[in-house]
């Protein structure tokens, strides 16, 4: 089965006054049909820009400088702006981080949903409205008919995120890119939204890229996980494997910085130092300044190691006995 999405050697750079900022640097991955992939990393690691690059929504001075983004076999980077517009929202949808900001405050929910239907399908307003209402019902918004005519400020944060999800679902896309959609929400609402998205993705057979810095969320949701650091994917593999037996020191560092992963009473072990400025990344492995395992060889660029269940970029990976 061909994958829904195949990203090959994608690089997205920002041409700033202070130099070239390599937000995404030679990133490759695939997303299979119906697959849920978690893209994990710290702020500034390039995970959101990866998502925007796929949709062709990188704002200047940013630009995709090289690579291929094959969506159902077609390269999105060669498409005209009009062709891309026809794909956005129709075949690939996106959900944003902050539900308070993603809906236009001065337009009613109905307007913002109907325009999405009509941007891609030639249907009457009544038909578009009916589809919008059904989508609202689908994501668990009570009395959707009345709520259609409300404005965003009349919804709570969780409800707004449900509206955004309903908009993403309007055209039953092949792929949804969710950029930290639960980060801004209360924990109880988070798990509800997570559950809903997982259910809907399964129900409609949609593939999902879930961008997050929260390993717990990704563990609960994803089939596969990709860990990004300083613009590169440093480790990728099945969720269970990566979380229980990380190969890359950065992944293990992330895991031991999560409160739930450390036995009670023991101090958390944060990763020392800070992520390097994207303007002045060290040559070789970008993580080496913060890495206890680093040696001189890390000053050269580590190649992608492909093991049975795992891909990683590291000269000194953790070794786990086959258990």
């Amino acid at each position, binding site marked *: 089965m061909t994958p829904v999405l195949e990203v090959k050697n994608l690089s997205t750079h920002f041409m700033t006054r202070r130099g070239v900022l390599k937000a995404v640097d030679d990133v490759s991955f695939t997303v299979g049909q119906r697959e849920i992939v978690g893209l994990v990393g710290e702020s500034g690691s390039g995970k959101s820009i990866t998502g925007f690059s796929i*949709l062709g*929504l990188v*704002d200047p001075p940013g630009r995709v400088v090289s690579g291929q983004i094959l969506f159902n076999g077609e390269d999105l980077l060669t498409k005209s702006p009009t062709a891309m*517009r*026809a*794909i*956005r*929202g*129709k075949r690939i*949808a*996106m959900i*944003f981080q*902050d539900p308070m*900001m*993603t*809906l*236009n*405050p*001065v*337009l*009613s929910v109905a307007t*913002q949903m109907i*325009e*999405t239907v009509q*941007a*891609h399908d030639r249907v009457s307003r009544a038909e578009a409205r009916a589809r919008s209402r059904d989508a609202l019902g689908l994501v668990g918004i009570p009395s959707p008919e009345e709520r259609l005519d409300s*404005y965003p*400020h009349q919804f709570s944060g969780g409800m707004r995120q449900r509206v*955004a999800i309903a*908009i993403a679902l309007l055209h039953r896309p092949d792929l949804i890119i969710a950029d930290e959609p639960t980060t801004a929400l209360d924990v109880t609402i988070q798990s509800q939204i997570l559950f809903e998205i997982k259910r809907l993705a399964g129900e409609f057979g949609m593939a999902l890229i879930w961008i997050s810095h929260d390993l717990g969320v990704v563990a609960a949701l994803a089939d596969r996980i990709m860990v990004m650091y300083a613009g590169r994917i440093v480790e990728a593999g099945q969720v269970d494997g990566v979380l229980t037996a990380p190969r890359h020191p950065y992944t293990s560092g992330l895991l031991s910085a999560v409160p739930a992963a450390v036995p009670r009473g023991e101090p958390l072990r944060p990763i020392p130092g800070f992520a390097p400025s994207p303007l002045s990344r060290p040559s070789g492995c970008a993580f080496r300044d913060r890495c206890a395992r680093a040696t001189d060889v890390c000053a050269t660029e580590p190649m992608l190691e492909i093991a049975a269940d795992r891909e990683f970029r590291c000269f000194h990976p953790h070794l786990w006995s086959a258990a």
Partner: protein
Amino acid sequence: MTVFVIRRFLQSIAVLILTAVIVFIGIYAIGDPAEMLIAPDASPAERAQVVASLGLDKPLWEQFFTFAWNALHGDLGRSFVFNRPSISLIFERLPATLELTLTGLVFALLLGIPLGLLSGLKPNSATDEVIMTGSIFGFSLPSFWQGMMLIMIFSVWLGWLPSTGRGQMGEFLGLHSSLFTLDGLTHLILPAINLSLFKLSLVIRLTRTGVRETMPLDFVKFARAKGISERRIVFVHVFKNILIPLITVIGLELGSMLAFAVVTETIFAWPGIGKLLIDSIMRLDRPVVVAYLLVIVSLFIFINFVVDVLYSLVDPRVRLGGAQ
């Protein structure tokens, strides 16, 4: 809404009373209208008779309360100079000013919004630079100088447009206006442009700033992610958000355009209320000045009310009455 209207109405009355008091005292302090009105060779008896007939012999507070009492009965006093009700003098002149101001405003909006959008959507481009530089001129060159230059260029050198007066007026639906005849329109063009150049610059800058502030917001990116056309994003998503500050400022500016059309009306000999005000201040014609300011204040209040109502139409987050 009803609560809002009533409260607004009571506030308005307080403002009107305060205005009347301030203007009364102000004009009284400037000088004695009798000096201006009575011929220097009049006998003391004649003089006393005129002063008494105008009520100027009474103390100021008594004059004020006579005025206030009459005003409550719809009489804002008679002009000392023209010996006619001051309010009818004002309403004779008001349409000319309204016509000039509204034309100027429409011109500023019709030209300013597209130019502002153009330069906001392509910031730092050559187009943007040209528009922004032009708007600096609109801001910084004094209005009277702009007016004189317009006359110089279009009336004196090119001879395309007349420079004084209102021209021929036409009638449409019972309204008399220069807008309805070609001659009237040619007379209207220069003063309207003169009056609107400053506002045009203001509208351009407001629109540009609005576009620059709104375009990077998440909801614009989300709209793009939904596959909405760039055209709809600009004209619906962004524009409706820009309208909010635009309406506020335009409301305030419309009031000041009406009140201070004086300079333009003087340069182009436009027979509006601005010119009437200047003449009346010169002659210390207190009833006209007071009535004029009360009318202007009322207009301000009315415009602000309209702005508030428009607000609630454009911005769903604003609910009049504040009952929530």
